[in-house]
């Protein structure tokens, strides 16, 4: 089939929703920079449209090609993680960034895609009757845990947990016996218990600042000018938005710099302050629709690889926005996770657009069957 004709078959509603979300993002970036295209809005627009075209390009390429290169992608992902461990730029006490000249990449973000690809590949290749065999459960688990551990050592606990979560989720969708998850859940909570018991002892498993973040999360008012400052201020911004918001570019919290990281992780609060409940719910609905269209797309595909790939990448997207929104509302501890397609940042934008490229490719080639 002619690649240009293929484009007709992409999931248009999904594509339009992506565009709509990005427009939301441009609007907010323009506002937080005080009504200016610089320094955030213009680069963001450029980046978006380049990667938007990339989606079309990727969707024209057969899903079987993506399936074939999945192991290489995974290896590349792990290699980048190892590279960042040795050559990464240090920022905020953690090595997370890899300077690739053209773009500063956060390999842990890119790894999420390659992990979903390898897991989908794995279950696609695995005979169905072996899905719940202990050995064949251990293999994907190692594929998830080992890179997650590298990420954890950067140190980036938040992303490591998200990686594990997405990986486990793909395994769940793939049909692994429910008992494993029950067992896994129980051992997770046991581990959590031990983790907290370790605090202040010689064998403390987490860094002090992790514990402090958890403390702050549990009671942000305890230290409103210190660690709890972000959450307190962002809740004030959210709440003060009310039903209709304070008006575009009128949010006192964001315009007066009370909000931390207002152009990246905390951009949702600016939206909430300036557009109110209608704005926030509006964005939440758009996000939900994106997820819904992905799920429909997944159900419509005929092969296991596509199905797992779409659900896994869709889960990645879901974790982005749900964790970010929960975080700014103080429902989750502050972890550095951006609001997808809205927050300023090249790395997360590329990763998200790449995953949509894969999803669209799977959608276009849903009837191929292999």
């Amino acid at each position, binding site marked *: 089939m002619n690649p240009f004709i293929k484009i007709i078959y992409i999931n248009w509603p999904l594509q339009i929703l992506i565009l709509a979300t990005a427009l939301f993002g441009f609007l907010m970036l323009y506002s937080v920079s005080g009504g200016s295209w610089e320094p955030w809005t213009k680069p963001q627009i450029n980046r978006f449209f380049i990667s938007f075209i990339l989606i079309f390009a990727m969707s024209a390429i057969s899903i079987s090609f993506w399936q074939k290169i999945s192991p290489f992608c995974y290896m590349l992902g792990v290699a980048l993680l190892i590279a960042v461990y040795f050559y990464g730029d240090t920022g905020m006490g953690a090595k997370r960034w890899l300077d690739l000249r053209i773009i500063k990449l956060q390999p842990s973000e890119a790894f999420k895609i390659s992990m979903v690809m390898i897991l989908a590949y794995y279950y696609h290749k695995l005979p*169905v*009757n072996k*899905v719940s065999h202990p050995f064949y459960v251990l293999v994907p688990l190692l594929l998830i845990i080992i890179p997650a551990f590298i990420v954890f050592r950067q140190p980036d606990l938040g992303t490591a947990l998200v990686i594990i979560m997405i990986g486990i*989720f793909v395994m*769940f*969708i*793939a*049909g692994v016996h429910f008992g494993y998850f029950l067992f896994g859940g129980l051992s997770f909570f046991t581990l959590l218990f031990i983790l907290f018991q370790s605090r202040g002892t010689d064998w403390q498993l987490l860094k002090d600042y992790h514990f402090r973040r958890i403390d702050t999360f549990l009671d942000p008012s305890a230290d409103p*000018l210190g660690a709890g400052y972000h959450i307190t*201020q962002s*809740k*004030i*911004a*959210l*709440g*003060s*938005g*009310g*039903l209709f918001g304070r008006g575009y570019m009128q949010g*006192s*919290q964001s315009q*007066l*710099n*009370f909000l931390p990281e207002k152009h990246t992780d905390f951009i949702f609060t600016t939206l*909430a302050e300036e557009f*109110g*409940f209608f704005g*926030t*719910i509006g964005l*939440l609905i758009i*996000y*939900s629709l994106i*997820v*819904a269209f992905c*799920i429909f797309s*997944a*159900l419509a595909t005929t092969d*296991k690889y596509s*199905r797992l790939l779409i*659900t896994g990448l869709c*889960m990645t997207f*879901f974790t982005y926005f*749900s964790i970010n*929104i*929960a975080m700014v*509302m103080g*429902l989750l501890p502050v972890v550095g996770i951006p609001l997808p397609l809205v927050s300023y940042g090249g790395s997360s934008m590329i990763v998200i657009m790449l995953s949509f490229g894969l999803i669209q490719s799977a959608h276009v080639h849903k009837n191929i069957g292999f």
Partner: protein
Amino acid sequence: MSKFKDSTLKSKLIRRVHRRIVLAGLLKASAVALLGWNIRKLQIEDSEDYKLLADANRVNLRLIPPSRGLIFDRSGTPIALNEQNYKVVFIREQAGDPGKVLKRLASIIELETKRQEKILQDMIKRSSFIPITVAENLTWKDFAKISVNLPSLPGIIPEVGLTRHYQEYESYAHIVGYVGPISDKDLESEKPVDPVLQIPKFQIGKVGVEKKLEKHLRGRAGVSKVEVNASGRVMRELNRTQGKSGENIHLTIATNLQKFASERLKGMSASSVLIDIKSGDILSLVSTPSYNPNNFVLGISQSDWNALLNDERKPLLNKATSGAYPPGSTFKMVVAAAALELGLIGLNDKIFCAGFYELGSRKFHCWLKGGHGKLTLQEAIQKSCDVYFYEVARKVGVKRIGDMARRLGLGQAYNLPLTGLSKGFVPTKKWKKERFGTSWLVGDTLNVGIGQGFSLATPLQLAVMTARLASGKEITPNIIKNSNKNEENPKALSIKENTLIAIRKGMFNVLNEKEGTAFNFRTTDENFLIAGKTGTSQVRRITREEREEGVIKNEDLPWKMRDHALFTCFAPYKNPRYALSVVVEHGGSGSKVAAPIARDIMLYQLYGGIPPVTAYPEKQQLEVRNRLMDIEKKINSRNNINKNI
């Protein structure tokens, strides 16, 4: 078979995948619902609270301290002024590490390590957003240096404040008093609390007019509503409520006279009060030694404070209004007035003075050992005979003496905006019974008759008494210009004119008749003749043995044991304009010590400047010239110092 089984398993698994995708979708939907629910709670349910918090974040109220009312003398010369004071304050919450910022500040201006520690301590005690004053009275150069370096000094805010400055500081200290930083105790006594007082180190009146007229002088604070950003930087002013500066106060004091009197009393522990008889205006009210009120404005050091407190001459005390002394012979006019009003003695009735008065077995002595012989009332005043007044006091009785004393202004505090006003004391029989449990004795009455014993009067009261005798009107003193307009015409004392004339004549004779106790200190200018009365009040008991051996001279006694010297007078005799009292603590004899001082001050006022030597008896002119020139020189040099400041 196995293939069939495989395919059923496969389709079962495919269904499982489908099921799980749907299940996961539902889980995601419920997670989104949970988020939505939380957003609803924040943005709709609790929105009002958060809006308030956002405003609290954004809007800061800043008080603009009002400028304090100025204090002027009667001719409009400023006494208490507000001067610009360059200072820096420090707000803890805006500084990351206050210790570090202070160290950096110390590298720019001089700031002792000890002071730094004190500032840090103060800061911890107060809320983090309260500005703490770090340094005051900076030079313009230091102030500019700090302003330039502000970016590296988070939390440091340079301010231009107003600080009180006292111009004629020494001579006005006891009247005007001083302001100082508000203390917690001051705050407790203020209700309702004026918001301006919460400005740290806000200066309020502590003593004197500054304290008593605080409400007028303070004014009302303005409020500036400003929008601030997260780092506390003011972005814009939202609105501003103008405050009101304090009212200006005009005193009745004449600065030139005040300075002259201060200089004349310098070196002594003394006080003087000069009243305008027509208006009751206090033209001069001096107490020495004095102190520099400017030292109190920014908070006085402990050692300076202790030095002032422990000085036996009590520089902090306003002796003119707070010092109560036995009035001594100056009280004899009260006894005389009471006796004449009651008709108990006639003007020509004579009493014999043998040098003592016998009451039972007790002897009451006259100051003149050999006695005065036969005397009329006027002669008794002129010569200050004690025996005469023992006799008369006994006839009048303590109650009626007390009544007359109160009528003449003793035993009461006047409504003046000064701190520590003493009421003096007029004793009564009832008081003695209550106080000591013993009955009033005739001997007590005799002592009261010559102004000794229990009675006490302040120099101000003596001046008022003299003004009342000189005018026959119920003069009340005032120190704020135009403050008692409705009392412009004071009511008459209802004392017979003859009584007053007789007493005035007696007082005239004190200075102008050869045997008058202050004849040496008369004036020679016919227009400015002075009438007065000397007083010497004992502060110790003279035992019988001592009296027999000869009373020890004042000069041979320790300072604290010496007599107080008093003199009260009015002038000109024929048309009384001014009443004046002078009290020199432990100065010795009233006639020798207090009278010459009073003459100089009174003549200064009468001539409106340094009096010509021709106003003095010829023999004294050389000595007077030297003294007056000396005083003039000192006043001028002090003026120059003030100008240079």
